[in-house]
């Protein structure tokens, strides 16, 4: 927006408002705020007079304090910020950044660590399971081999019995019930 007389009027009003709020004197009028040396760059000097004390100017420190107290309102009136609306010699108190109760990085770290620990536990457990299965398989295989050995070691090899010396019992041979009926 362009800076014109209306904006100057608004500025005077804001300064008056600030003085009123600060010193709670409701006597300050817009006519008490004087602007001088207005330049194209939109910079100017201003003073606040005190009508109750014979047209003397209010001391600079009071004006400074008043403006500092209401800085936010003044900025917002002009849709500007501390950087774009500068009062020389009034440094703004900087607002501290919002700090959550637990720092954010700790939360992220917790998430990452949980994932890692879960992965490690999963891998170790699956490794143990695979190890046990392999052990069980190898012991089963060993047992099977033993059984085969035992049947051979009984003196008479079982296969030999089957093939060579086998008498077919006539009673049972005629029985067709060898095969279970469907």
């Amino acid at each position, binding site marked *: 927006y362009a800076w014109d007389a209306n904006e100057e009027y608004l500025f005077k009003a804001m300064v008056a408002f600030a003085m009123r709020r600060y010193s709670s004197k409701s006597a300050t009028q817009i006519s008490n705020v004087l602007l001088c040396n207005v330049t194209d*760059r939109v910079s100017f000097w201003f003073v606040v007079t005190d009508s109750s004390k014979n047209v003397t100017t209010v001391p600079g420190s009071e004006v400074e304090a008043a403006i500092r107290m209401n800085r936010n309102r003044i900025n917002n009136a002009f849709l500007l910020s501390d950087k774009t609306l500068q009062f020389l010699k009034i440094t703004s108190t900087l607002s501290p950044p919002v700090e959550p109760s637990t720092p954010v990085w700790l939360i992220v770290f917790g998430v990452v660590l949980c994932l890692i620990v879960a992965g*490690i536990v999963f891998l170790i457990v699956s490794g143990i399971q695979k190890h046990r299965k392999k052990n069980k398989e190898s012991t089963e295989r060993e047992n099977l081999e033993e059984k085969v050995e035992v049947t051979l070691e009984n003196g008479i090899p079982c296969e030999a019995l089957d093939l060579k010396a086998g008498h077919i019992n006539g009673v049972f041979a005629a029985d067709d019930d060898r095969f279970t009926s469907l």
Partner: protein
Amino acid sequence: LSATPETPKEDGRPKWDNKFQYILSCIGFAVGLGNVWRFPYLCQIHGGGAFLIPYFIALLFEGIPLLHLELALGQCLRKGSIGAWNTISPYLGGVGVGSWMVSVLVSLYYNTVLTWVMWYFINSFQEPLPWSVCPLNENRTGFNEECYESTAVNYFWYRKTLNITPDIAESGTFQWWLILCLAACWAIVYLCTIRGIETTGKAIYVTAIFPYLVLTIFLIQGLTLPGATEGLIYLFTPNLNTLKNPRVWLDAATQIFFSLSLAFGGLIAFASYNPTKNDCEKDAVTVAIVNSMTSLYASIPVFSVLGFKATTAYWDCLDRNIINIINEFDLPEESIMRQNYTTWISFLNSSYPEKIAGLKLKSCDLQEFLDQSVSGTGLAFIVFTQAIILMPGSQAWAILFFIMLFSLGLSSMFGNIEGVFTPLLELQIIPKSAPKELLSGIICLISFLIALCFTLGSGSYWIDIFDRYAGSVPLLVIAFFEVIGVVYIYKIKRFSKDVEWMTGRKLNLFWQITWRFISPLLLLIVFMAFVTLQMQKPPSYTAWNPKYEGFPMKEEKVYPPWVQAICVLLAALPCVCVPLVALFHLVKQKHRSKEPSLVPPEVSFCQGTNS
């Protein structure tokens, strides 16, 4: 390959799931943080495009032959570094022990760099990014003094991350947040290397491929940033005059050597899990070329972003001057823009020279901003983070960038840990019945405990020492003895027969010439030049001292004598293993009073040891 079906080797040695996994692991090991933050820096300071000439010459005559040698050796002997060199000749066992030791030392400090990356990563989830704003001082009237005098990015790195002490002799305290991140990093390494290549083989698909994706994204983003073209032109403009400086050739040779991660024993370990009938020649050429191409590819987004940063700094400088001038002369807003700044300045200088002189305007020169070259951790944690703040959507870019750095470093860590793990597994430190997971757990736990030293206030100074002394000179010495050992002790005739048997075709003359003469000679020259350059001035370091007069410039200090002794120890210990082990075996032979058989009988180890 043979027509008859091969009987599966019943030696119980783990093997890669497929060839791609093996190649990817080698590439991941070779491509590391140095490809992103050292190569672009070297390119910049050594005359841009002209640096590529010594770089490719070094690649051809030093990098590829040594890489081929290591891969062929591991594949042939099917053992880790210590076992392989013991097999070739017990007198050369020291070479294996030396590379094992270097792998241990490098693993310790490399993971601490990853700790810093992780710390930045978990801090990237905040709005605004913590390194973009200065914290306030106690009475909230202004910013923290240390931060105000340097920059917010510097402050976050030196104070909030490292909490650095002004001197290496002052150890400071343990930084608990770094200890947490270090524990997490070693846990990740344990998770991925828990069963050796069974698990790293799966993890490498992610950690080796992901950086390329992010580099591409950064490439596209970087090229759209304003000022990117200035950065790229600055990087690639060849200045052939720099080639007259021997320092350039030395830097090219050392860069190729360290970039390919030679002489760590990790490549030998990777290759030992291969089937013997595998074309190691093609693998070596592939890995080396991919590594160099990655370096080039990575330098493009890095320099686009650096160009963007320089341009933004230049614009800021101009804007500040413009504001000062406008305030002084009470000119209307937007009367002076960046484009007509120079005309205005000359006009005002001629009409009101005293006023202009009184303003004390800083001269803004884009070249000067581009000339501020940084490498190493400074590039990633200071320069790049500053550039990321200026990009829209900084959190996403920061997260992507740090995950990429983490993957790059992690895949290199796999190779380092493999170089430590495989020889220990073969030496049977733990009983055979104990699971592999126990050995990798012990390695990770002990490394974590030792690496706690790097989380002290002076930790980053120590990491610089390890990087400069443990990770440089010993590798050159070990690689030299590797080539000499294979070519002159194992005898090149036998080795070329082995390689022919493995690859299935006759060994090219190129390899014969490079292995016999060129590579050893080059290594010797590089080693001498490197050592001479280091000895020229007393080893010094730059310290971050807020009480220094020239702050925020870093203070140049000399290492105290006890630190210098440690530097010498770090560099000498792996090298001294080579003659020590040889001496030990010589003494043992003398005691046995047998004929010292330096050269084993003419039996090839490749085809002989079929298991």
